[in-house]
């Protein structure tokens, strides 16, 4: 028999909150909340309109955060009220889910802009065009072996007639909303009541990936929702009595975790890790001992083993390149951290090239403090008599997810390492699943505590502090994620993934496609390559130490181009076109790289000038190259490889042609 202890958030106090006794006017209240939400949305639209014309202006941040706070805080306040019904909370959470997609929708309403979005757009296009999965992918080759997102998108395109971008947007939007519903289901399975569970979903929305990174058209956006639902089904399988119900939830866990394995590598590995942590907690007699706890633990271990086997099997048999793709990040991050600890490296300077205002940076640090305060309060609350569940599945689940949540704090150390920053940030989407449960426990209790203050001033002050902490988490969580160049539109910004798309680049890519057709091998830089490899339908080179295409660009005029090995690879790989962005010679990229992260680090001289300065015009004199296109900022060269010994006329001879225009 399951003993259902009283949820901690509900037994925070036995007294009725004072605000409950006041006379309420529900329609006025509802209209106020609705008006705040609409005005908040208008403010967000205003912020994006301001951002269009400025590289970065504090006004756009002020309008944006005013809008977000106006839109979300009233809804969160209603969710946190004890008198709000469970169904109404679900409805309000759905509204938060949809409206929190607005920043990403307004950022790129018509076409992909983020780096991975181009890759998934192309992968989806290839499935539609070729009718096959696992075709070699451009930009991010490993995504070819994880077809979950683009296969589903391709089907939606086929059935509905929507464009790839529209279909992807619909799918990601639904995943985004389903993610919050999944957190609620998971939190309820852990034992939280609907108020605390909904607050957990709200708290999850403060993680660095929620507003932008996990709303992009990329495999993580779908897989994070699958992870959450896998964990919800896993927790349900543990919480229900053995029998058909457990079997049902086990089946769903298996299906969801396998779906996760075919969608994204890293999140599935993280999913398996979380399930293993929870399984360990369920095997601890002190935490889990209750009727049938051994059977429950066996169920948990079996489900964890299946998930682990699914991702290991998929990587082994279907996506072996995943290991080579992921391993450098972890290895380099650990190496850099070791260097930092030993003092031989200063590490990464946070927000060094950020376009966002100082108060966002402060909030980004503040969110860790707020999370720590809430998590500590949640743990302390659980340790007090009456706040701690009896030994059993609920306590073990809570212990397991608390451990996952607390992993967030040590993971923040990796943010100081250049290689570990990205992985650290991506892990937060997982660790915040556990952290949100912890913070929701204390959040619900603190709301009750604040509303029970006898003096109105004390009540208002307590509520004000809670509101300020929530607003800090909302601002800081997002600020700790992607930079402003990803978040806001604006003028062209050299070397930023999300602001490199211009009409000129688009026109060049379309000219190339119209003139030569798809599928040509092209050498170019990272930012030009995004458009060429996606809408241009060409196959761009993947620069590496073994294929150092940057040597073509860095060679000084008059010097022979590249090492012989490079020409061998170019010739055997049928690379026939070189596209040059002339701004490489004058501008330093915002992201700090011209090609990929593995490029040599000396492309910017100590005086701040790019090494390419004065070295790009040389291609016009290379005998085995012809410049076939030139626009304001781009030049396209045809490479005649293997390079022959072509002899050119140097002595003056009579040769007279004729130019004819418009005839």
């Amino acid at each position, binding site marked *: *028999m399951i*003993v259902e202890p*009283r949820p901690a958030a509900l037994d925070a106090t036995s007294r009725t909150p004072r605000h409950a006794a006041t006379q309420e006017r529900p329609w006025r209240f509802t209209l106020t909340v609705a008006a705040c939400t609409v005005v908040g*949305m208008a403010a967000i*639209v205003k912020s994006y309109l301001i951002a*269009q014309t400025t590289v970065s202006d504090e006004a756009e941040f002020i309008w944006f955060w005013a809008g977000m706070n106006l839109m979300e805080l009233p809804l969160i306040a209603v969710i946190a009220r004890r008198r*709000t*019904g469970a*169904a*109404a*909370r*679900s409805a309000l*959470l*759905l*509204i938060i889910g949809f*409206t929190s997609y*607005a920043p990403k929708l307004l950022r790129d309403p018509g076409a992909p802009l983020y780096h991975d979005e181009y890759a998934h757009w192309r992968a989806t296009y290839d499935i539609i065009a070729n009718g096959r*999965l696992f075709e070699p992918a451009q930009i991010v080759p490993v995504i070819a072996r994880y077809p*979950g*997102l683009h296969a*589903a998108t*391709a*089907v*939606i395109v*086929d*059935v509905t007639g*929507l464009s790839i971008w529209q279909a992807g947007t619909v799918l990601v*939007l639904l*995943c985004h909303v389903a993610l919050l519903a*999944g957190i609620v*289901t998971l939190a309820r399975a852990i034992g939280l*009541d609907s108020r605390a569970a909904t607050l957990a979903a709200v708290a999850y929305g403060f993680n660095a990936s929620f507003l932008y990174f996990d709303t992009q058209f990329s495999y993580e956006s779908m897989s994070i*929702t699958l992870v959450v*639902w896998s964990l919800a089904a896993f927790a*349900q399988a543990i919480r229900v009595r053995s029998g058909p*119900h457990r079997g*049902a939830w086990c*089946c*769903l866990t298996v*299906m*969801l975790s396998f779906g996760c394995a075919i969608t994204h590598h890293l999140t599935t590995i993280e999913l398996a890790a979380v399930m293993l942590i929870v399984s360990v907690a369920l095997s601890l007699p002190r935490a889990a001992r209750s009727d049938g706890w051994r059977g429950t633990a066996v169920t948990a271990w079996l489900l964890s083993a299946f998930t682990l086997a699914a991702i290991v099997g998929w990587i082994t048999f279907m996506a072996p390149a995943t290991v080579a793709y992921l391993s450098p990040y972890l290895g380099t991050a650990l190496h850099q951290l070791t260097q930092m600890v030993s003092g031989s490296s200063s590490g990464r300077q946070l927000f060094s090239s950020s376009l966002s205002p100082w108060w966002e940076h402060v909030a980004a640090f503040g969110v860790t403090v707020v999370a720590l305060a809430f998590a500590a309060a949640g743990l302390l609350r659980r340790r007090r008599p009456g706040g701690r569940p009896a030994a059993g599945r609920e306590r073990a689940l809570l212990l397991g997810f608390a451990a996952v949540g607390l992993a967030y704090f040590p993971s923040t150390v990796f943010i100081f390492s250049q290689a570990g920053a990205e992985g650290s940030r991506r892990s937060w989407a997982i660790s915040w699943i556990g952290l949100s449960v912890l913070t929701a426990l204390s959040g619900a209790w603190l709301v009750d505590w604040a509303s029970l203050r006898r003096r109105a001033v004390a009540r208002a002050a307590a509520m004000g502090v809670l509101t300020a902490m929530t607003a800090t988490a909302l601002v800081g969580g997002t600020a700790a994620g992607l930079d402003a160049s990803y978040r806001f539109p604006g003028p062209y910004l050299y070397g930023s993934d999300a602001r490199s798309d211009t*009409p*000129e680049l688009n*026109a060049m890519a379309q*000219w190339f496609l119209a003139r030569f057709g798809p599928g040509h091998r092209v050498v170019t830089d990272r930012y030009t390559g995004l458009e060429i490899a996606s809408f241009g339908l060409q196959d761009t080179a993947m620069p590496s130490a073994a294929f150092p295409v940057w040597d073509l660009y860095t060679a000084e005029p008059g010097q022979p181009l590249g090492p012989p090995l490079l020409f061998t690879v170019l010739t055997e790989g049928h690379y026939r076109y070189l596209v040059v962005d002339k701004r490489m010679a004058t501008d330093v990229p915002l992201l700090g790289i011209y090609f990929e992260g593995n490029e040599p680090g000396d492309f910017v001289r100590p005086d701040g000038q790019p090494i390419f300065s004065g070295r790009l015009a040389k291609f016009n004199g290379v*005998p085995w190259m012809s410049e*076939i*296109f*030139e*626009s*304001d900022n781009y030049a396209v060269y*045809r490479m005649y490889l293997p390079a022959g010994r072509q*002899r*050119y*006329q*140097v002595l003056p*001879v009579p040769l007279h*042609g004729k130019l*004819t*225009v418009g005839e």
Partner: protein
Amino acid sequence: MSGPPYRRHQGSRLRYRWPDAWPCYLLAAFAALALTPIVPGGPVRAVLAVPVLLGVPGALTLGAAQARRSVDATAFGALAVMLSALWLAFATLILTVCKVRISGTGVYVCLLLVCCVLTAAAQRQLRRRTAGEPAVLPADGPADVLQVPDEAGAAPKRGAWYAVGGVLAGTALLAGGALAYASAPHPAPAGYTWLAWSGAKANGVIAVGAQGITLPFEITHQEPGPAEYRLAATWTGDGTAHPLAAPRTLRVSGDKTVRATLSIPRPPGACAYRIVLTLTELGPAHPRSWSINAGVRASQGTGGPAGCAS
């Protein structure tokens, strides 16, 4: 008097009640997807097809797994969407394993078969529950934590309507924001000019026969106002430019593409010549210029390599 007919009528209604036959209704809805190509592809068809495509397979899976009643309306809908999205991916995997080309029709047929199986399983679960399982939860505790009756608010049956309301309100807000943004004035996109060859694709130095050759190219001026340019053609071998044709001045109006050609006779000797076309902006203090080039040589050149540089 009216007893028997009334009872018969009620009986027929009961036989097809939603709670008893919802999997069949959903299967029918999925089968009806075959009719959606009547509607032109785009948002209208998407409004009809997406709820079915991203709802039915998942809902049937939950029904077949006997999990439908274990979750509230919001969770049911969300989980159904995720499972449906997975089924779309699984269907493409099945087609790949069967070596069938992935297409809308192929996936539809595959998913229809899957839905038939899921419907049969879900109906079987419904019949078993109706036949034997108690309608209410056993007294020793809830079968599922989501059914813990500790919540205030709407009755469970109204929860679905709250969820629908939340979805509609959220969609309306999101769509309103997107429309407001789209209809607001946006800065004009930055203009550009390009110069490019437009003839047959050359693979190396172009051979020129006795008749000479005409090389077509185009100039695109993608800016609001007109602009004046000077177009020049030269040839070069060692970096020194030699005039090839009389320069032309041309005026290109805004957002226009001009087509032009360069005609050259067969070049003398056996060497290759690098032909360079240069377009220079007229008027500004710092005029921009664009150039393209190509290698040409006589198809059967005479003479030795005396004047050639390697």
